[in-house]
């Protein structure tokens, strides 16, 4: 007779001393772990609930400006530095880690219209009415003693700097390309438009730039050519635009018709995605450095975060005291969002509302990653989605959203009735993407 009976040595399964950690032998046999789908689902639901519980996006508010914040600029070399310009011509330099203003400059008399830090981080440019100021870093002296390009003939509304060369672009009545060392533009672009609101250099194809014009168009230029490349005219005016830093053939423009549009530079005849959710004009947009998401500021006093290919926002930020948000920036470490608003404050938000700040222990990080994967896995289940999508909105915003929905529905119904009672195919079916583009001009 041969016999063997299970007989475990407890020493193999129990810790030796109290100072050791407990031994946890694993066996992944599926029959020892029944109901794996249901249990994972329950975990995912719990994780989603916890995410909503921990969603506290607001970090801090930087106050000090004496008028509405009109523009901001990220420093290209240090993460903790932020520049902001207000409507009374004041420029402030902030240290974000200490949450304090490092330096204040009275740069102009009126609005600071635009601001950009040079790619090397040693100096920055601001624009004012018809003047471009070149301020050296760290602005030790008064602006009068910094390098000044100008005064120039026209009024400026926007500014951007080339990624590598000593060249910058301004916009106003026309788009001008300037050499830093010269007092007259090296190139000027006009295309039958009286004014431009923003100009942006492409971060990858550095000679390309795009601008938003007041004839409801977005115009593309090549700096090496003397004429603009092409433009797309939409039903309403775009305020600003931003290039996707990773896939630099995509750009997103924020429009007066409450929507944002992502275009492929090569195919302008219809946008890739229409991003809807704002209930008032979108004023500013900025991409995350990963190029997967972008944030938009709106006149409806909210900030919304969109996935680059998501039609609706994944997140909305608002506070009781935040007024119309004028400018928005996504920090270069992909963790924070900075918003400048009408009521003189700059606010620092977390890009991921439920993220824990600070150092995480390995076990904590592992658990967070596991929960994140579970949430993604079960995101389409109705219960999970309901919890994940739930947001508290201010009453006015909530009602406006509802009203807009009703209006849209009525419009759609009317169009359907018109189609029903007219000759077949005389009223074309237009998708949401096609509706907003008037024409493309080359």
């Amino acid at each position, binding site marked *: 007779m041969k016999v063997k009976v299970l007989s475990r040595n407890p020493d193999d399964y129990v810790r030796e001393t109290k100072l050791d950690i407990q031994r946890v*032998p694993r*066996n*992944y046999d599926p029959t020892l*772990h029944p109901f794996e789908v249901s249990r994972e*689902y329950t975990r995912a639901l719990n994780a989603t609930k916890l995410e909503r519980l921990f969603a506290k996006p607001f970090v801090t508010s930087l106050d000090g400006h004496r008028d509405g914040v009109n523009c901001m600029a990220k420093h290209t070399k240090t993460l903790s530095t932020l520049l902001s310009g207000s409507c009374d011509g004041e420029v402030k330099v902030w240290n974000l880690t200490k949450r304090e203003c490092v330096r204040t400059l009275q740069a102009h008399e009126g609005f600071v219209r635009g601001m950009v830090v040079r790619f090397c981080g040693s100096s920055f440019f601001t624009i004012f009415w018809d003047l471009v100021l070149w301020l050296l870093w760290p602005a030790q002296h008064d602006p009068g003693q910094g390098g000044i390009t100008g005064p120039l003939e026209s009024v400026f509304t926007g500014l951007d700097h080339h990624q590598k060369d000593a060249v910058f672009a301004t916009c106003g009545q026309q788009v001008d390309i300037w050499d830093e060392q010269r007092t007259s533009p090296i190139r000027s672009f006009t295309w039958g438009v009286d004014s431009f609101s923003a100009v942006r250099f492409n971060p990858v194809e550095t000679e390309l730039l795009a601008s938003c014009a007041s004839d409801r168009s977005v115009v593309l230029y090549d700096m090496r050519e003397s004429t603009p490349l092409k433009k797309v005219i939409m039903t309403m005016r775009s305020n600003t635009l931003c290039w996707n830093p990773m896939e630099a053939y995509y750009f997103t423009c924020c429009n007066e018709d409450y929507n944002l549009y992502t275009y492929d530079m090569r195919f302008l005849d219809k946008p890739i995605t229409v991003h809807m959710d704002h209930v008032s004009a979108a004023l500013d947009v900025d991409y995350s450095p990963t190029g997967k998401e972008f944030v938009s500021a709106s006149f409806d006093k909210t900030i919304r975060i969109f996935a680059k290919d998501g039609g609706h926002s994944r997140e909305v930020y608002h506070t009781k005291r935040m007024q119309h948000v004028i400018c928005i920036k996504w920090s270069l470490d992909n963790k924070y969002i900075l918003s400048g608003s009408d009521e003189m404050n700059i606010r620092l938000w977390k890009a991921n509302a439920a993220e824990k700040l600070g150092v995480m222990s390995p076990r904590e990080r592992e658990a967070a990653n596991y929960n994140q994967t579970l949430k993604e896995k079960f995101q389409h289940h109705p219960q999970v989605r309901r919890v994940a999508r739930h947001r508290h909105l201010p009453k006015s915003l909530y009602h406006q959203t509802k009203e807009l929905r009703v209006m849209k529905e009525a419009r759609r119904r009317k169009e359907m009735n018109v189609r029903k009672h007219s000759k077949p195919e005389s009223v074309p079916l237009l*998708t949401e993407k096609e509706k907003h583009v008037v024409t493309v001009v080359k």
Partner: protein
Amino acid sequence: MSTTETTDPAVLLPEGLWHKLHRKPAARYWKDPQEVARKDGNNVGKTGQQQAQKANKRRLVEDSEDEEQVLSGKSDPFPGPAPIPEDRLQKFKRKDKTKTSRSQHYKLKDIITRSEETSEMAQKQAARLDLVLPEDAGFLEGDEDEDTCTISQEDIADSVDITSATKHFSLKLSQFGPYRVDYSNTGRQLLLGGRRGHVACIDWQTKHLMCEINVMESVNDVKWLHSEAMYAVAQKKCLYIYDSKGIELHCIRKFNDVLRMQFLPFHFLLVTASATSFLQYLDVSVGKEVSATCTKTGRLDVMCQNPHNAIVHLGHSNGTVTLWSPNQKEALAKMLCHQGAVRSVAVDKTGMYMVTSGMDKKMKVYDIRSFKPLKSYFLPAGASCLSLSQRGLLSAATGDIVQVYRDVWSTPVTKPYMAHRVQKAVWGMHFCPFEDVLGVGHGDGFTSLLVPGAGEPNFDGLGANPYRSAKQRQEWEVKALLEKIQPDLITLDPTELGRVDHATFEMKHQDRVQALGFDPLAKQKFVPRYKKKGRSSAGNHEKRKRKVAHEDLREDIQKTAEANVTTERERKEKKEVLLSGKRSALDRFKK
């Protein structure tokens, strides 16, 4: 790897030349894909090669690092990752690979391939870990011409180590018997409930008596709740819950005349079957009754749970077994299993097999996924109690004899694996989890038998851990409560939650189409893209359109042809089965 070792001619010849020499006709859809693969032998088909190349791109990079030559010039005799046995891989397989079709969106394809890659990696790692698990299962083998069922418990106890020998013991409790038995889910604690009111819980390995009470009422059944801190006792009138020190925690008057109980550990549900034919579910984490169903089938004294999907099986006096979930007032399924009353039911832990015994002295094995009988055994005295162990041993009690059978569903069994006679008729029987022990409660007390090969040798430390400390138990309890599965998730197929809900989607889609006035997901007409250098002439344009149309048509034809081939094959198989087997007159009514 050096080229001389390989025998594949493709390596020696330049690729293009090799293809010219061995040109094969393209794979045809009317051919059986398996057949084609078999013909090809080890060489992967051309399309398969391309796919493999795509999928293995990342792996190739890793492999090239492995193939680096060692300084000594010797090549690695065992190149590549260590092989994993196929059966281990099968053990951890969750689902087959999804078929990708040309019409799928590229993003969806990408997501699917990524997730499949990760699950494949997880499967491999789990299989590797399975190879190095520390403990092996027990076994019992007789010498030549020696039946294992003739080996007595004393012989086994003599020939095993002292610790194991102490696991065979008997408690003589003739005063308050017969006894019902239950082991806690870690297998460390034993709960005894005597018919005449004696309730005792014992740490049976150390023989330490945790508590002992007499409830002064008849006891119908006892059951541990989720941990060893609480247990439920079905008494004459109502259901009581005691803690491990014997203090009465709750008296639940709503549950009266309870005869049998089951505890669903992942749902925290205590299921009771009563003499008044009520099946009730009690959520023990919040103390609420989840559902109460009148089964209208008389006295319910045969009950078991399916540990795979938490469905409760009830046996009835008319020979039927019914399946119940708390979400439905009607039985999910009714099976006529025996010609007499059903005496006992047991379901194995994979949820595939059900074993029943009835008054007709038969013991039957069913496949409960397809509700089909597999095996039928005749036991001269009939089995009053059945119990299945973690590794699939079946114990059946006939009168005062306990018999243990092995492999009842895969092979026809003629002899029991083990047999033992206890003093009086068996009343309750339970295999101890993670131990080679069978606890038998009978009229004269309790006997613990050694059954080698019954228990799962390797437990999971994060699940039921027999060696857990008090702190670990507390942590486990919190985690288990957090991931308590809601009772409305109990279904016949527990993986249903992870599948795509086509029905709801279709309904929603219809609503959407109605609201929009057009179908947003409808296949769009193909419009050829404009190409430069004169490649968009009208003729070229038409040609491209026709090409796409042909491809679509081809796909459709391929699909229908494949379907035809499979139906034809099925028909043939059916025919063969019919021809080979005996035909009865009633077969013509079969579909």
